[in-house]
């Protein structure tokens, strides 16, 4: 029966509770391999069509593992032929997985999304009276989009400086900002003891210093910073 991988955690952590079930209500167990532990299930349906229920079941198992130690989570759908194949798969990536475990140890992922100025700043409908007027309209639209990009870069720098000065982020990843973007998004790798402080620092940097709107969510498993099979 195929073996489904949820995450990899350091060796020596408590195994999942005997009652813990995961994708398709399959029992979750711990499989030791290459000096680490993998949380896995044997699944009957190898097609594993993505669904909200299955994705939630996957994440809930990863969250359970996070109560023991920060794992290297697997993305949804990581399936191997059997336990032996999974053990070999882990052995083949041993150093990379160990590096990832060290990288995220003691941390969680927090996501930050900041709303940028709306596109109302861009000129209205395209003019139709002449080619020259259309060209001027295109230029105005490009300038409006560029101003949003400049604003995003300024905000990014400001928030990055605030979290660095407060020491609440070990690592950060910002989504690329393109002309016309409507929001600015970041993932922060945050030490567990700094979760509350991280919220305060980011909100202050965005709301108080820039009078902008922010959405903070988490704590999550560190999917953005490492994923088994995508190291």
């Amino acid at each position, binding site marked *: 029966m195929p073996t489904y991988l949820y995450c990899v955690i350091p060796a020596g952590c408590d195994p999942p509770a005997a009652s813990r079930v995961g994708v398709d209500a399959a029992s979750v167990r711990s499989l030791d391999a290459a000096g680490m532990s993998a949380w896995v299930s044997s699944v009957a349906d190898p097609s594993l069509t993505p669904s909200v229920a299955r994705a939630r079941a996957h994440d809930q198992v990863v969250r359970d593992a996070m109560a023991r130690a920060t794992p290297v989570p697997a993305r949804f759908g990581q399936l191997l032929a059997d336990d032996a194949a999974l053990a070999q798969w882990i052995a083949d990536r041993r150093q990379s997985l160990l590096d990832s475990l*060290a990288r995220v*140890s003691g941390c969680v992922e927090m996501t930050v999304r900041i709303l940028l100025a709306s596109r109302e700043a861009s000129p209205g409908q395209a003019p139709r009276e002449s080619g020259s007027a259309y*060209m001027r309209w295109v230029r105005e639209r490009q300038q409006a989009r560029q101003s949003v990009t400049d604003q995003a870069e300024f905000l990014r720098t400001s928030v990055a400086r605030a979290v660095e000065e407060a020491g609440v982020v070990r690592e950060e990843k910002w989504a690329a900002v*393109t002309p016309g973007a409507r929001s600015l998004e970041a993932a922060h790798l945050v030490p567990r003891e700094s979760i509350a402080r991280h919220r305060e620092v980011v909100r202050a940097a965005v709301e108080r210093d820039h009078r*902008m709107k*922010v959405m*903070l969510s988490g704590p999550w498993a560190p999917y953005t910073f490492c994923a088994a099979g995508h190291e």
Partner: protein
Amino acid sequence: MSSGTNRPNGALPAPRVDVSEGSIEAFEAELRAVARTLPDRINADPDHVENGLARLVLTVVELLRNVLEHQAIRRMDGGSLSEEQVERLGLSLMRLNERMTELKAAFHVTDDDLNIDLGPLGRLR
């Protein structure tokens, strides 16, 4: 940045979403728009496959159209075009824009549908 250490982990607080006051609807709208730009499979349903392919093709055309407009503005601002050339170039781009609008309407595709996520390059629009 703070440095990390290996330490035993305790109970983790439940995930929470905090939004700035008065901004819930704005974030909902933004997340819906983002969700529409996530990479998707082409719908193989015979009744809808045409729309999925049209979205893909129109996205590529829109990307090229944006590149053309950028180049045109750069040439205009660089002073290398006469007034007549600016007018002719503008008319061409305007008609291309109008044609795109017609095609989007024909296939029930919106601007947000063409705002695909190009991964590390960001989004198209």
